């Protein structure tokens, strides 16, 4: 296996963008890295964790993003280059701290925040663009346009951070952070990290103490002065470049993923002689002189950027203030509907935007082929809805929750949270989840519903959260619920890992990010100490879990906790053989004639169970089935059997 710290300067490697950033951090000589996992950012810390001990750096999966950035700032204050990583949802969690550290400043060593945005929300609950935070909170921000830049920008950003004493942000998007490309490696310096918190009271010292954000207006002014200096620095940055003819018919202004897409689109349209591209890597503060000189090259300007029209906004605002000798540009982009400010940017979207401004013909396929495309019957390519893995404990947990709520009969419902179990919005979890927002929101909502009995509300409320989510943002909700006598059941689906993002450890697991023994924090002890009734069950024991769930739902008052504990199937199968041999007795399976309405393939819907339309019976797909044994307990005819593997 190859690690990101491979000692081969000058060699060419295939890295995903996140690994490139992590490599860049090693080449910058960082000593600290902390993060909370979230797609598309998780591999930054994950790949650093693999080499941390060897490279003498400290790497931590923190309980949540806010702790990650505050802990990372401490390293900077003590003279250690520090990296903090998160996805854009995490940025919301740390805004409060960011708004003060821009005023207080950092330590003697640099502090870089890497934020991974997820346009099209491939693996997210929203697709927020992080770039506006730079303008909003006065934080320098850069954005890599390819994989090499994802690496090279990191040492550059640490130098900026230290020269000007400010936190800096690197924003990446899924198609950079989570795509793979060639990286030419640099050298990893040997740094001896020595941490000490120097306490100078002299305001002229590199890091005067106390570290504070007052007097705020003065410090706000100071940050603006820093930004002006950084703007000068950015004017000559090699991460900003113009390519194309001196007098193009159209100037594209782009950044991030738009850089490679724009080149591909110009290439596909064979319009290299007509279109110039200004690619910006340092976005905020805006390198105004460079932008102004490029705007003078062309009358027409098209903004190509992913998600929000950020550059479109700041550049049009800037251009509106030009001196009268400047000619006026015609601007195209989101405000002219040539591009969307939602969903993912693609080469096709860029081609469409360009051909909407310049009259260039483009037909990707001939008419005969398009006829064949249109003739493909829809039922041959029907959508595959997402589902839990075969053998996933969540399917069994939601089966128990569904049956308990049905037996109770008062139209109870589930408030959901963020993780694999979000799929319980759909058939995977039998449509049990009725709310789905951000981490922790399910428990907060349950707190509210649980107080509405005074207004006639009589439905049971079940808040379902994951184990990592519990530590990240559920504990305050449970404290609130117990303290205020809110009436709800908290279900913690404890599968022993942050499964959705790649099985990272959390405070309940045995090992730290660096593979060292961790102090395991018992979730049941926390809940009991708060004063909640706690029951622990094995979701694969459907009968007992359903019974426990029903007794929890029927409890009249107070927040209570059911922990459904079973290891994530993807983790289990790496360590153990399959536990059972599953069989279906074709004599016992009555198919459509059974009164069960094909419970196993229409309702339970584990992908390991398939319907054989010829025989009119259920079959097991032996390539897919993980032989967990649960479905044997749902077949009313006992047609599905499990035999323990000796």
């Amino acid at each position, binding site marked *: *296996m*190859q690690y990101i710290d491979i000692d081969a300067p000058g060699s060419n*490697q*295939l890295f995903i963008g996140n690994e490139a950033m992590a490599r860049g951090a090693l080449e910058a000589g960082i000593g600290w890295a902390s993060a909370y996992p979230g*797609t598309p950012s998780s591999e930054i810390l994950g790949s650093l964790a693999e080499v941390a001990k060897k490279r003498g750096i400290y790497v931590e999966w923190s309980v949540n993003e806010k702790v990650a950035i505050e802990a990372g700032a401490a390293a900077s204050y003590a003279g250690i280059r520090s990296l903090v990583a998160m996805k854009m949802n995490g940025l919301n969690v740390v805004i409060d701290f960011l708004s003060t550290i821009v005023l207080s400043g950092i330590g003697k060593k640099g502090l870089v925040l890497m934020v991974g945005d997820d346009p099209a929300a*491939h*693996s997210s609950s929203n697709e927020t663009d992080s770039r506006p935070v730079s303008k909003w909170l006065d934080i320098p921000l850069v954005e890599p346009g*390819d*994989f090499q830049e994802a690496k090279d920008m990191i040492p550059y950003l640490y130098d900026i951070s230290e020269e000007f004493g400010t936190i800096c942000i690197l924003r990446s998007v899924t*198609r950079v952070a*989570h*795509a*793979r*490309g*060639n990286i030419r490696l640099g050298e990893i310096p040997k740094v001896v990290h020595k941490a000490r918190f120097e306490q100078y009271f002299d305001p002229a010292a590199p890091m005067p103490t106390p570290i504070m954000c007052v007097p705020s207006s003065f410090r706000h002014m100071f940050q603006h002065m820093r930004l002006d200096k950084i703007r000068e620095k950015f004017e000559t940055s090699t991460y900003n470049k113009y390519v194309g003819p001196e007098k193009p018919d159209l100037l594209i202004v782009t950044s991030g*993923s738009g850089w*490679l*897409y724009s*080149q*591909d*689109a110009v290439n*596909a349209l064979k319009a290299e002689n007509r279109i110039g591209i200004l690619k910006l890597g340092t976005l905020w503060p805006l390198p105004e002189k460079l932008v102004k000189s490029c705007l003078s090259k062309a009358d027409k300007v098209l903004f190509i950027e992913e998600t929000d029209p950020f550059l479109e906004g700041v550049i049009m605002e800037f251009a509106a203030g030009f001196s009268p000798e400047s000619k006026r540009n015609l601007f195209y982009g989101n405000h002219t509907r040539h591009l969307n400010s939602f969903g993912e940017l*693609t*080469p*096709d979207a860029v*081609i469409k935007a360009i051909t909407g401004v310049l009259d260039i013909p483009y037909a*990707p*396929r*001939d008419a*005969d*082929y398009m006829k*064949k*495309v249109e003739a*493909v*019957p829809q*039922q*041959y*390519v*029907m*959508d*595959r*809805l*997402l*589902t839990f*893995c075969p053998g996933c404990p969540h399917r069994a947990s939601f089966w128990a929750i569904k049956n308990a709520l049905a037996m109770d009969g008062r139209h109870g419902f589930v408030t959901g949270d963020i993780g694999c179990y*979000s*799929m319980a919005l759909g*058939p*995977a979890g039998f449509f049990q989840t009725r709310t789905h927002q951000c981490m922790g929101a399910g428990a907060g909502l349950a707190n509210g519903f649980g107080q509405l009995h005074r207004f006639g509300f009589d439905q049971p409320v079940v808040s379902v959260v994951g184990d990592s989510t519990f530590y990240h943002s559920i504990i305050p909700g449970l404290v609130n619920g117990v303290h205020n006598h809110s009436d709800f059941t908290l279900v913690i689906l404890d599968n022993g890992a942050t499964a*959705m993002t790649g099985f990272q450890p959390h405070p309940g697991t045995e090992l730290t990010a660096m593979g060292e023994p961790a102090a395991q924090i018992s979730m049941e002890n926390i809940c009991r100490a708060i004063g909640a009734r706690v029951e622990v069950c094995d979701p694969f024991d459907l009968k007992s879990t359903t019974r426990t769930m029903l007794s929890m739902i029927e409890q009249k008052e107070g927040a209570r906790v059911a922990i459904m504990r079973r290891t994530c199937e993807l983790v289990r199968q790496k360590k153990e053989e399959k536990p059972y041999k599953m069989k279906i007795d074709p004599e016992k399976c009555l198919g459509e004639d059974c009164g069960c309405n094909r419970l196993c*393939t*229409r309702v339970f*819907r584990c*992908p390991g*169970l*398939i*319907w054989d339309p010829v025989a009119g019976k259920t079959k097991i*797909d032996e*390539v*897919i089935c993980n032989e967990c044994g649960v479905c044997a307990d749902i077949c009313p005819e006992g047609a599905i059997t499990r035999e323990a593997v000796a």
Partner: protein
Amino acid sequence: MNKLAKDPINVVVAGVGGQGNVMVTLVLGNTLVHDGYFVTIGETYGASQRGGSVMSHLKISAEKQYSPLIPEGQADIVLGMEPVETLRVLKSYGNQNVVTVVNPRPIHAVDFTGSGAGYPDMRELLAQITGMSAKTYIVEATGEAQKLGNSMLANMILIGALIQTGLVTISREAIEKTIVDMFPKAVKENIAALSKGRELAAKQ
């Protein structure tokens, strides 16, 4: 590194979450980078890992770094790990010149089993795929992999078949080096699967 007949060569690897789509693309990508090519890979991931349609875009160039997504209708090769997903990708990325390698082993979606529509008739499905490809290699990768003792070896069989088509220049040495790097505990099995894939494609 050789200059390519067409630059870039666009490959789409199509399958269902859990089949090993990312791994297949990574094996090809690592091998090509060792040989000095520029490689860009874009993949669907995350929630799609769990039973959903997944695909990876692989662009190979002797000249420069391309973007990680292939435009509509611009695939040169489709490597199909599952027939419905192969047809889905051809609809979006196929064209009159595309070459398809397809594993005819279905993976039933919960929708197929639940809705009563059932999985499409395999012969008709393969006819659609063949009709939309300039050349189609039908490679019974899962069946052969099960004979070799592990259904996951289907992926290496498909890679072997792809190499045999000659559309992507990959030397035996380069791919074997990647196998040793990536699967040090299962070198023999993977090399056997690779040969099996070459053999199956050579017959077509």
